[in-house]
């Protein structure tokens, strides 16, 4: 009977296509929006992955990685003096204006790395190689990321290449390498230079040290050392998971991004319930006399319910599959350009599947409630 139930549904082409369409759209909306949201959230912590340090020491009021509250220069030595710290280096980070040869300005994320260790240096050099990293120690030399290269090329009207120059706060910056980085949450291109050079580029302020990157001594965990740093210096020390969590929490609390995405995801669910529920209910209503006839012939409510569930879950799984497929195609298309951010996880796929199954369950239950109340004798009343 379950096979015949499917044939009953497949035979009604219009309803079948509408159900699949509604569930596909719902599945697509929920998964695609989750993936973009995940991508965006991953961008919020991309700075940490670009810098790669086990311990991030910041001013005690800093809540997330993209926030800077300057430290005193002496704080580096205070952290170094903590017994479990293997080494600690200063990091400068600030948004500054980069001016191209034609006078156009672009805002960039300037990163000043400790010249001795180059801790936080780019990992993926596209041109210039390791030599470029070494040349960062020479005055006025910078490494730009692909985004910076593209933006500066656009305003110059020709591709930026090694040896080209531009200005940062009226000081010359010479490109010695181009690297690839994960996109910054605020979309700023990265420009890497040495810490001392960064201080030359940036507008002079009383305190210039943005953060301290530290590593624990062998045999000690980042967590353990972070707590010791906090205890002995009064500064805030985050491990990577702690800083990621704090950053994501900050985004949830302080931006409308999650609410906006959540609204769209809920909308996807509601659209699914509305379209699938209404279409399936209308399918049940149109087949009421046949279902009544089946009841008269001895089909119990349990069997009729099973038939409706099989119909609903079948279209649900098909719609889910198509929706996921379209989302995957979307992901492959945007991946090379990196916009919008896209990160799909197994939890997203499972979550959408669960949501679609709930939609189908609700759609089937509406129909089942109608059929369960149906007296078999109704078939004799015309």
């Amino acid at each position, binding site marked *: 009977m379950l096979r015949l139930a499917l044939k009953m549904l497949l035979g009604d082409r219009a309803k079948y296509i509408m159900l699949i369409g509604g569930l596909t759209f719902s599945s697509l909306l929920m998964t695609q929006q989750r993936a973009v949201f995940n991508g965006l959230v991953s961008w919020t912590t991309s700075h940490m992955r670009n810098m790669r340090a086990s311990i991030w020491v910041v001013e005690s009021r800093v809540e997330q990685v993209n926030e800077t509250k300057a430290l005193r220069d002496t704080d580096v030595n205070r952290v170094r003096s903590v017994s479990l710290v293997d080494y600690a280096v200063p990091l400068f980070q600030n948004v500054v204006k980069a001016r191209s040869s034609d006078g156009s300005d672009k805002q960039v994320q300037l990163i000043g790395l400790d010249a001795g260790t180059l801790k936080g240096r780019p990992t993926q050099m596209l041109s210039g190689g390791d030599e470029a990293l070494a040349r960062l120690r020479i005055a006025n030399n910078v490494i730009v990321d692909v985004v910076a290269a593209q933006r500066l090329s656009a305003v110059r009207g020709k591709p930026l290449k090694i040896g080209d120059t531009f200005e940062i706060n009226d000081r010359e910056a010479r490109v010695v390498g181009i690297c690839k980085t994960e996109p910054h949450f605020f979309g700023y291109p990265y420009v890497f230079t040495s810490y001392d050079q960064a201080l030359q580029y940036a507008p002079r302020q009383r305190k210039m040290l943005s953060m301290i990157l530290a590593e624990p001594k062998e045999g000690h965990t980042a967590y353990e050392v972070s707590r010791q740093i906090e205890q002995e210096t009064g500064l805030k020390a985050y491990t990577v998971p702690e800083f990621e969590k704090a950053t994501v929490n900050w985004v949830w609390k302080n931006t409308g991004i999650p609410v906006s995405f959540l609204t769209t995801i809920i909308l996807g669910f509601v659209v699914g319930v509305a379209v699938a529920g209404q279409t399936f209910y209308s399918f049940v209503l149109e087949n009421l006399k046949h279902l009544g006839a089946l009841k008269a012939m001895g*089909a119990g409510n349990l069997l009729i319910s099973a038939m409706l569930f099989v119909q609903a879950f079948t279209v649900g799984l098909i719609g889910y599959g198509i929706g996921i497929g379209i989302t995957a195609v979307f992901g492959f298309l945007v991946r090379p350009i990196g916009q919008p951010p896209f990160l799909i996880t197994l939890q997203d796929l499972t979550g959408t599947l669960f949501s679609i199954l709930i939609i189908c369950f609700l759609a089937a239950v509406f129909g089942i409630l109608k059929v369960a109340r149906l007296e078999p004798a109704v078939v004799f009343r015309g």
Partner: protein
Amino acid sequence: MPADLSPTTVARPATELAVRASGVVKAFGVGDARTVALKGADFSARQGELHLVVGPSGCGKTTLLSVVAGTLDWDEGRVDVFGTSLDGLKRSAITDFRRRNVGFIFQQFNLIPTLNLTENVSVPLLLNGRGRKVAESKAQELLKRVGLGGKETKRPTQLSGGQQQRVAIARALVHEPRLVICDEPTSALDSETGHQIMDLLATAARAPGRCVVIVTHDPRIYGYADRITQMEDGRVRAVLEGEPLQRFVQSTH
């Protein structure tokens, strides 16, 4: 003309009771809207009999048919079908009983339009737990016997009204039910097709241990009846057989 719809066409003396309903009361609605459809109706039908229930609209024919078929609860009275008392049976037990023992033929055929003829006819067997192959094989056999051999893969919408009613007859008989309930089986058909359908039902009714009960308004088919129950205002007014039945049939022509 297909003739054989039963394991044997030898008529048996129609004496053993197939259905006995006594003092059946059934009301619909509550308060001012309450309508009593059956007011103590007594009805019986014998095995091997084609029994017609006739009467004006609203007299309770269809309600009586629904009660006898076990598709509608009643308020008072007793109903026995082939020795099984339906009184006090749980709804699930009545459903089981119906599934095994009752075949249905509806005025509007009620065939499922998205299934082919074989699938439509095999439904009662599938409901009774028979395998798909067995059910479809039996369904095709029945379709041949009602004169629709070669059309097994057609959809109901590709057939005429008479052909659809033949499919409905095949579906009603495929699981060899003892009681066949027909609701106005010829009212949607022209005269010639109606007679063909009645020939099939009359043949089916002759099967041993079977009874066919037909509710109808159609005087063209009165001549097929072994007995006729006349209803009026929720009660049985008369049961006609023999000479009185012949006079009644002639009077309606």
